[in-house]
């Protein structure tokens, strides 16, 4: 192999700028998708544990749909198919007037895909809280919404924080798929550097390291959060 290494291209303009803007898009897409996933996933997770059968079935259908269709296909569906299915005025707006349609689409698709996973975690967390807790809350006059907000969810989230960490990490990895609909996020930028400079090893190594650093930071953040909300749970801690 006759490869001439040139690590310095990574800090040369415009390539450093490309990497930086790729990182920025990766972060923007991933974090917005995660926030959407947390909100939608918590709602669906809650609906899945309601005492009535019909909302439970709706929640199960939502989860099955968004979890079992491959993410890549979901991206394509939202980007190419949904605008055609909408009433033509909305479709035109999506295709012509909405700025950065590929960016919004990837946030939405990744967010909803991830929300199905969050819903499963939150649902299992709620189920793990003893039924007596719900009974105590209801007996004190709390509404169903108060029961979830004040009693069930705070306990459920503590239970599922560790598995949620892995879903959070997966969002950053999955965000690379956004390049298939033309988002110049981190992976796409490193490919572009490769095709301009033929220094593929350097470009992809840089991207790899950036993903690793993100993963380490997210893990650290979640562990800190876990520790901050942990409850003292032994008799020994009393004194």
């Amino acid at each position, binding site marked *: 192999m006759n490869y001439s290494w040139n690590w310095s291209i990574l800090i040369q303009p415009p390539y450093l700028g490309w990497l930086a803007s790729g990182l920025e898009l990766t972060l923007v897409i991933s974090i917005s998708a995660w926030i959407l996933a947390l909100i939608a996933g918590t709602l669906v997770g809650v609906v899945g544990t309601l005492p009535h059968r019909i909302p439970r079935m709706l929640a199960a259908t939502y989860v099955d749909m968004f979890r079992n269709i491959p993410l890549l296909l979901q991206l394509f569906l939202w980007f190419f198919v949904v605008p055609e299915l909408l009433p033509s005025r909305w479709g035109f707006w999506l295709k012509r007037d909405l700025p950065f349609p590929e960016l919004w689409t990837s946030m939405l698709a990744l967010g909803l895909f991830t929300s199905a996973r969050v819903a499963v975690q939150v649902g299992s967390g709620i189920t793990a809280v003893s039924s007596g807790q719900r009974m105590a809350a209801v007996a004190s*006059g709390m509404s169903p919404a108060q029961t979830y907000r004040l009693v069930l969810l705070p306990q459920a989230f503590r239970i599922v924080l560790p598995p949620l960490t892995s879903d959070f990490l997966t969002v950053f990895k999955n965000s690379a798929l956004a390049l298939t609909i033309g988002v110049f996020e981190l992976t796409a930028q490193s490919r572009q550097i490769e095709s301009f400079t033929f220094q593929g090893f350097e470009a992809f190594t840089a991207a790899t390291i950036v993903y690793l650093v993100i993963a380490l930071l997210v893990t650290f953040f979640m562990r800190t959060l876990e520790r901050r909300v942990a409850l003292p749970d032994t008799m020994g801690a009393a004194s």
Partner: protein
Amino acid sequence: MTKAHIQASRTPAEIVEMPASARVVPISQGRKPMVEISKLYKSYGPIEVLKGCDLVVERGEVVVICGPSGSGKSTLIKCVNGLERFDRGALAVDGVAVGDRASDMTSLRARIGMVFQHFELYPHLTVLQNICLAQVHVLKRSKVEAQAKARALLARVGLPDKEGAYPAQLSGGQQQRVAIARALAMDPVAMLFDEPTSALDPEMIGEVLAVMLELARDGMTMIVVTHEMGFARKAADRVVFMDKGAIVETASTQQFFDEPRAERAKLFLSRILSQ
């Protein structure tokens, strides 16, 4: 004063013999009884667990419910605050029809305190927060007011120094006393207890019963599912014996212990008391 008054005013036998409507309990002053249960039926699937229960609890009265496991005691008291639905019959608490769509169950539940076998304190909140939660969010009291109430009640149940502790840091007896304080913080008109001491180590039962006894002496209307016959003797006005989903005996406390009429109650008593 009220308790002594009730017991002195007529013999136990009279209370049993008189129809509920004819009773004139001084504290109620002609108002409706606190709890009126009539012909209550409930099934879980094919299994009928309540088979036409009738029970009237007057204001200020303490009723102990006992009976073998699976006889429907928990189901009956959960029906009282609407935690369980019933299939047929009528149930009114403080004049509000339970199970009626038009009734405001949320505000009724806020006025009925409930204490569970396994305490059910909220593990993610401190003792003080546990006692304040429903006060603030259901009764819309200010935080300051709720905390003042909570501290006063903690002193009353003998735990003035535990407000910052989490439930897991307390013994079972302490947790149950906090749970009682949490229920009392809502200024309930009646209190329901479902085997409040049966999950406790023997040495902690006394401290919880002492709090309940004081509550009974203060005139609280109480329905207590328990097998603590010592408590029944000291605190109860009446004892109700349930078996297989039916109330097979209702008697004044004295009569229940001295001359139980139902055969099954006799057998049950002899077993419980010989332990």
